[in-house]
């Protein structure tokens, strides 16, 4: 009998990909996607890597697909912004071995800097998209996505959301099917997107779209569940669960393939019910599509504009049910997360705050310095932005404004290095502070190029950030002891006053790594 067990959605994605014969898995960490690649690395027959950023990880995936292997590439929602450049033209070239890209979206932004809805990336780049509603579907749909990828010669998105990624639900697994490598043939008209080739490939994309639309209207992932003839709900992903829980008698059009949108099926469903609702998180993706068909629908705009859905919202707003419980207790002191005990990267923020230095911050554990008691960051936007933003600040700021850019080692490799080259090239006097803890701590301690080992725990060269900075042309590079506040202060004050670009490396291994290995 096939084994059934409770599996986290991310584990189920990895399991499904492994069963589908995936040989290569690439990713850059990011909540809520991280565990997918961590689980992939536990399969010996999958070549798994942490790439330095999402663009690189997609490019590696494309190369492996070109050589005929099935490849999984996973990232958090904002990772797709970074990977968007190769993505849009990959749609034109198509694939060789199946290529599935997981985007883990975060309604409610529990661990993210925005709430972007990557269904619009599917629409924007014309990439078919599947949206599982639980771990079983995640496992099933990733397998299906590989078939669609190869059948239609296209990358395919699997859109997860936090509540699918990090929920354990019952999953029935299967075994791995070995999928032979598809032979590679040189085909510049397909794989080299010079304008004349790309122009012709665009016709192929449109032809593919016609077929995908037919698929979306007929595939089993998009299904009508008739119950009430009066009320119908169009929904997708985890929202399906909220609808079934709160509105058990309502008919449902469950959309499991959300791009292309199954217009015919929506029309059919709408004709079978009297009132149509749509229940979705993030943007009004389905609602707008239904309105464009000229079908009256309500729900999204009225029920939830920001944040996560839950069954309670539907129970209250549509069913007018109320538990009768009191509201939240008042005056409960907040409990914000903070730096770990003994962290070597907090004193630097005391120095920066105490000396009134403008800080272009970045994304990592040190983002916690934006919160009390430090309140040390002026900005936090996206990975790597600290360095370039500070350079921009220096262009305009009055002389008495002292500023720095602060980022971590993983972020430096992700997108800080190019920014540093830009500083040198453009003769900036910017001071950049690199908090080198030799690990990607925020997302759960994944190794990066400064760590000395890879995702499988095998030794790999540890890149030395000081050497790199010098090689990029920074003449003034200093290391400081993260626990010596006086030393840090003296160094920071000297560098912010220096009329040339400089780098300060706060060189402290992550305490959690020191403690737990």
């Amino acid at each position: 009998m096939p084994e059934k067990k409770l599996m986290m959605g991310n584990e189920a994605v990895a399991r499904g990909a492994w069963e589908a014969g995936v040989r290569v898995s690439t990713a850059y960490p990011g909540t809520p996607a991280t565990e997918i690649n961590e689980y992939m690395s536990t399969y010996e027959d999958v070549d798994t890597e942490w790439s330095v950023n999402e663009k690189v990880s997609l490019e590696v995936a494309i190369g492996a697909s070109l050589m005929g292997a099935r490849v999984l590439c996973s990232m958090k929602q904002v990772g797709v912004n970074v990977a968007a450049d190769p993505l849009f033209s990959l749609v034109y070239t198509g694939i060789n071995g199946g290529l599935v890209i997981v985007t883990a979206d975060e309604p409610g932004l529990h661990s993210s800097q925005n709430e972007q809805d990557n269904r619009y990336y599917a629409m924007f780049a014309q990439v078919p998209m599947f949206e599982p509603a639980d771990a079983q579907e995640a496992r099933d749909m990733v397998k299906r996505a590989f078939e669609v990828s190869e059948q239609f010669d296209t990358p395919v998105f699997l859109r997860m959301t936090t509540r699918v990624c990090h929920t354990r639900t019952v999953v029935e697994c299967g075994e791995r099917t070995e999928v032979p490598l598809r032979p590679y043939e040189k085909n510049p008209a397909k794989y080299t997107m010079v304008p004349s080739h790309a122009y012709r490939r665009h016709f192929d994309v449109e032809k593919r779209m016609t077929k995908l639309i037919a698929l979306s209207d007929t595939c089993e992932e998009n299904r009508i569940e008739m119950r009430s003839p009066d009320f119908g709900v169009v929904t997708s992903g985890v929202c399906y669960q909220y609808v079934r829980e709160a509105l058990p008698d309502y008919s449902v059009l469950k959309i499991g393939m959300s791009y292309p949108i199954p217009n015919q099926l929506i029309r059919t469903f709408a004709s079978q019910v009297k009132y149509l609702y749509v229940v979705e998180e993030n943007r009004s993706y389905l609602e707008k599509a239904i309105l464009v068909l000229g079908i009256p629908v309500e729900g999204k705009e009225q029920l939830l504009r920001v944040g996560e859905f839950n069954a309670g919202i539907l129970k209250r707003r549509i069913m007018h049910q109320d538990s009768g419980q009191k509201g939240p207790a008042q005056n409960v002191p907040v409990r914000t997360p903070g730096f770990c005990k003994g962290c070597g990267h907090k004193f630097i923020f005391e120095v920066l705050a105490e000396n009134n230095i403008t800080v272009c911050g970045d994304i990592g554990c040190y983002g916690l310095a934006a919160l009390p008691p430090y309140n040390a960051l002026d900005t936090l936007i996206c990975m790597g932005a600290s360095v370039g933003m500070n350079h921009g600040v220096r262009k305009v700021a009055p002389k008495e404004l002292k500023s720095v850019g602060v980022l971590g080692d993983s972020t430096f490799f992700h997108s800080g290095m190019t920014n540093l080259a830009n500083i040198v090239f453009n003769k900036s006097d910017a001071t950049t502070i690199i908090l080198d803890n030799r690990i990607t701590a925020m997302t759960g301690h994944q190794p990066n190029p400064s760590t000395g080992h890879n995702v499988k725990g095998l030794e790999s060269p540890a890149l030395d950030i000081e050497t790199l900075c010098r090689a990029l042309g920074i003449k003034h590079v200093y290391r400081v002891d993260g626990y010596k506040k006086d030393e840090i202060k003296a160094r920071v004050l000297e560098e912010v006053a220096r009329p040339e670009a400089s780098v300060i490396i706060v060189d402290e291994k992550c305490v959690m790594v020191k403690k737990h290995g």
Partner: protein
Amino acid sequence: MSDQIINILAVGVGGQGIIRLSDILANVAFRCGNDAKKSEIHGLAQRGGSVTSHIRWGKKVFSPIITEGEADYVLALEELEALRYAHFLKPGGTFIVNDFRIEPSSVLEGKAEYPADIDARLAEYGKVERILGSAIAKDAGNIKASNIAMLGALSKHFDILEATWLEVIKESLPEKLHELNEKAFAAGRAAGIS
């Protein structure tokens, strides 16, 4: 089996073992033949922030999360966290609260006061069972087993064999921790109120 869904909201502070506890709880329910779901937030919150985990089981479970006013039990490893999520309890539901406080930085910095009247305030929402979970764990050998001691107290409310709980606990923990956690569970169970 009835169609009734059991809803348990486990709350505490990052590092207290909420995720381990809720994994065990969901697996026990699943082993007893239920559909089960368990959901929590990973990432930033685990860094000393407030942490919740939603565990639901029954014949068929749809939503992975519990909504306000729906939890049969709020299992709190820390007192203030019980209060923070009190409104998730259903009217007539039960708080199972560890007799343990961790002062948040807002209190340590003197910007807020740790409430003195937590039990009275919780009582406005439902029944309160205060369990000496951390003291029990300490007696068993290590305060880190507080989560399992509290699981023991919760287990008193369910008609599930003690052996099933212990089986799943042992499967979920490395062997060197078995003795400690078995002890903590048994003592927590003995202290539980049914």
